[in-house]
């Protein structure tokens, strides 16, 4: 009885406490493993050392420059991919003929891993930011386009016909019927693309050597600055968490009118 009441009193606070406990526990194990000699501290420095290094990084202008480089290619690539995917998606999606005719080509191009384009990017752009952009745009374009096409396929035929009989033209139907139906799908695509874009931005920097956090990670690793490398890896993880959070908040904001989100609030 008593147990049940406490669960009702603050399940959220308790979950939060446990979650923080989990993170603390993780860092404790990480701290202990090299100190006790379970892992050589040449390969895995104790957590405190890495966290101190991360703290130092946060005060260095060079670090923030790298962050800015990475985030610029991320944001620019994502923006280009999204706009292109929306335009292409609306054009293809609004015509039955185009939808059918492009199906095989899209299904063929989509699974090509964007890292396959790395040699091409190096060849054409070298180590400039365009190399990163090529990979980021290619990878995120398909995520957005595919979700958008699913969304357009989900448009209610009756609603579309009704709009037609009320004399709404093609553009007006796209704006008032197709767009609201496809928007939740589009936001899902955007959320997936945001995560993928970060992966590819870091990959390009790591492998090609375009400026950014990924390049720094490769440099610190080959230079033997191991705790710096771990600190940078933690930093990329934090950027990833922030991007995921941001994407979820944006999704909620943009879809605040949509039943799936409205229902969430009532519950």
């Amino acid at each position: 009885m008593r147990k049940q009441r406490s669960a009702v009193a603050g399940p959220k606070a308790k979950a939060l406490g446990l979650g923080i406990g989990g993170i603390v526990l993780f860092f404790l194990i990480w701290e202990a493993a090299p100190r006790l000699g379970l892992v050589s501290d040449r390969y895995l420095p104790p957590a405190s050392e890495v966290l101190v290094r991360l703290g130092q990084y946060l005060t260095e202008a060079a670090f923030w420059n790298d962050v800015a480089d990475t985030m610029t290619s991320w944001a620019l690539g994502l923006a280009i991919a999204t706009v292109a995917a929306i335009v292409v998606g609306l054009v293809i999606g609004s015509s039955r003929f185009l939808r059918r005719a492009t199906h095989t080509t899209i299904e063929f191009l989509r699974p090509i891993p964007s890292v396959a384009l790395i040699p091409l990017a190096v060849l054409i752009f070298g180590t400039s930011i365009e190399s990163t952009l090529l990979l980021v745009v290619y990878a995120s374009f398909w995520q957005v386009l595919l979700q958008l096409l699913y969304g357009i396929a989900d448009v209610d035929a009756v609603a579309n016909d009704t709009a037609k009989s009320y004399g709404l033209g093609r553009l007006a139907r796209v704006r008032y019927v197709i767009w609201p139906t496809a928007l939740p799908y589009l936001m899902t695509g955007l959320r997936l693309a945001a995560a993928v874009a970060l992966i590819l931005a870091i990959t390009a920097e790591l492998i090609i050597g375009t400026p950014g956090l990924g390049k720094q990670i490769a440099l610190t690793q080959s230079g033997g600055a191991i705790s710096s490398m771990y600190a940078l890896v933690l930093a990329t993880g934090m950027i990833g968490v922030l991007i995921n959070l941001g994407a979820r908040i944006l999704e909620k904001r943009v879809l605040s009118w949509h039943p799936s989100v409205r229902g969430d609030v009532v519950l």
Partner: protein
Amino acid sequence: MSPLTRIAYFFGLPILLIVLWYALSFGSTNFFVPKPIELAQTLWTTWIGDRFFDDVLPSLGRLAVGLFFAIGLGIVLGLLIGSTRWLRNLLEPLLEFFRAIPPPVLVPLLMLLIGVNDSMKVAVIISGAIWPVLLNTVEGVRAVDSVLNDSCRSYGITGFARIRYFVLPAVTPQIMAGVRQSLSIGLILMVISEMFASSSGLGFTIVQFQRNFAIPEMWSGIVVLGLIGLGLALIFQFVERRVLHWYHGLKEITHDS
């Protein structure tokens, strides 16, 4: 739709694009742009033979082993974490953080911890591809139908039988959604781990071609990677259709009503 129009829709645009490509590259001397026929020939001569056994098969083997463990571990750990509330609360923020780390940065990290060898490459694939499966499984276990859950309990279905006949089927759609993401991440990591630190494998070979300005060979490598991606997608579709045929059927029924 008659079979003929269906075939026309299926092959129309790809053929059109290839013809266009052929026409545009005809007589072109651009060093960077391959010609269709030349590319097909290079594809054949470059990849069929020794290189297939020395580079392509080992890469695919590592990918298969990595994905197998990533998916297996993801499901088992996911079921475990998802069905124990305190464990789930304890680990969830941590797992979200691990998922958010872009997997390629694990390549230099695991290179240090394990060294440059096959197990490092497999470890890279596992450590990157496990998260979508693991987190989707946890999420799925949490969201199982509470009425079914209570029914199971009243009928005394517990332990392994409960997992096998209730939890696992209920979670499979989410697991498959996770597996789909894992496949593409696994493929990316296979290539990257070979590009970053290796002396063999697909990723290494393609970068080698590019460094030597062997442009048609490089393009053929890109095509090979594309074909592998396509193959994975087809296998996934086939498996998904078999594993989830009841689910798609169910969705159709509920959509119709």
